[in-house]
C-alpha cells in the first residue's frame, strides 16, 4: 500500500494495494491490484489508464516495455462517478527486477489520469518480479 503523502489539495492522490505482501511477485504469478483515486476535487476526467510495465533506470538510456495496458473512457466508470479501480494480469517470466549499481530493472503499476482541462497526472507504484540479489556496492565512494 502506498503511503499517503502531503500534497496541495488539488493534486490527486492514488492509494494502490497489491494483493501480495511486500510487493513481491514471482514470474507467472497473477498480479491483482486495487486502487483508489482521491483529490480530484470534482475536476472532470477525460480518461483513465492503468498499466503494468517494466523500465530500466540508471546512467544509460531508458528502456521500457508495457506488459498490460487498459484505457477507460467510459464516464460512468471513472472519477468523479467511480473513484476506485482494480485489475488482474498474469505476470511474465522476464525481465526480472534487478537492483544494479549502474542499471536497475523495475516493474511498476502506473495509473494515469487525463483531465478534461488537458493536464494529466501519473502515479507509479513499484513492485518486484523475482528474487535476484542486489548488486554489490563499490568498496569506495571516490
Amino acid at each position: 500500500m502506498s503511503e499517503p503523502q502531503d500534497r496541495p489539495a488539488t493534486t490527486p492522490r492514488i492509494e494502490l494495494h497489491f494483493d501480495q505482501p511486500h510487493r513481491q511477485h514471482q514470474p507467472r504469478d497473477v498480479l491483482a491490484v486495487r486502487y483508489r483515486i482521491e483529490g480530484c476535487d470534482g475536476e472532470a476526467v477525460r480518461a483513465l489508464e492503468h498499466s503494468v510495465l517494466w523500465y530500466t533506470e540508471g546512467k544509460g538510456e531508458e528502456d521500457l516495455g508495457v506488459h498490460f495496458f487498459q484505457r477507460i473512457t467510459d464516464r460512468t466508470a471513472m472519477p468523479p462517478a467511480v473513484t476506485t479501480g482494480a485489475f488482474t494480469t498474469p505476470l511474465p517470466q522476464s525481465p526480472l527486477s534487478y537492483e544494479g549499481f549502474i542499471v536497475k530493472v523495475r516493474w511498476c503499476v502506473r495509473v494515469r489520469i487525463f483531465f478534461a482541462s488537458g493536464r494529466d497526472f501519473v502515479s507509479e507504484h513499484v513492485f518486484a518480479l523475482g528474487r535476484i540479489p542486489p548488486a554489490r556496492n563499490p568498496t569506495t565512494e571516490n
Partner: protein
Amino acid sequence: MAVPGSNPFSTRFTQPGRITPLDAAGRPLDAGVLLARLRILGGTAAVVGPHGSGKSTLLSRLAHEIECGGERLQRLRLRSWRDAAPSWSAILRAGPGSVVCIDSWECMGIAARSLMRTAAIGRRCGLLVTSHKAAGMPVLVQCDTSLALLRSIVASLPGHDHWYGTLIHAADVESAYVRQRGNLRESLYELYDRFEFRARRGLGACGSGPADDDGSVGERRGIHEFADGFSYPGAPEHNLRL
C-alpha cells in the same frame, strides 16, 4: 526482497524532455520567446553550447512546443556521420512549413551540413539543430552552464526534499560541477554514483543477500517513500511507447 527507491539522478529523470530548460542563472527559458526568435531567423537556427550544457534538453522542449503549435516536425539524433542518410530522408520528406530538428548537427561533415541546409531552404522547411559551434547557422540561443544552473536542476529532481541534505549535500553538487568542469551531464552522472553509493549503504543492500522487507524504518524510509507511489504531472515524454 525490498524495492529500494529510485535514483533521482538517473537518465529517467534527467534526460532531454524530463527537465525544464533553464538559463545559466537557473531561470526557466521562455520557449515562446525562443520560437518567436526562430521565426525571425527564418525558421533555421542552431542551439549552441558545449557538451552537457542542456542543448538537447532545450531542443526537446522547443520541438514539443512546435508540435503543440500544430506544425509538422521530425526529430533526429545523430551519433555519427553515418546517420546522415536518415537526416537527408527527413529533409526530402519534409514539406513546406514543417520543421526538422537535428540533435548533434556537428556529427555531419561541413559539406553535408551545407548541402542539407540548402536542401531545407529548397524544401522551404525549417531546420533547428544543436551544435557545439554555430557552424554557419544563425544562433538561436547560446547554452552556458553554471553552478547556479546545476543547483536549480538538482532542486527540480523528484523527491528533492527527501534526499537533499541527507544523501546529497550542497558540497557534493559543487564538487561535481568543479570536477566535471561545468559539464552538467557528467556532473549529474557523478551525483548519480554518489547517491547510489550512499543510498545502498543506508539500505544495507551490499550484495550480502536480500534486503529486509519492512521498507519503513530508519534511513530507508525517506528513499522508500520517494519510490513508493511516486507521482508526477504528466508530460508528453511520459507517454507509454506502445
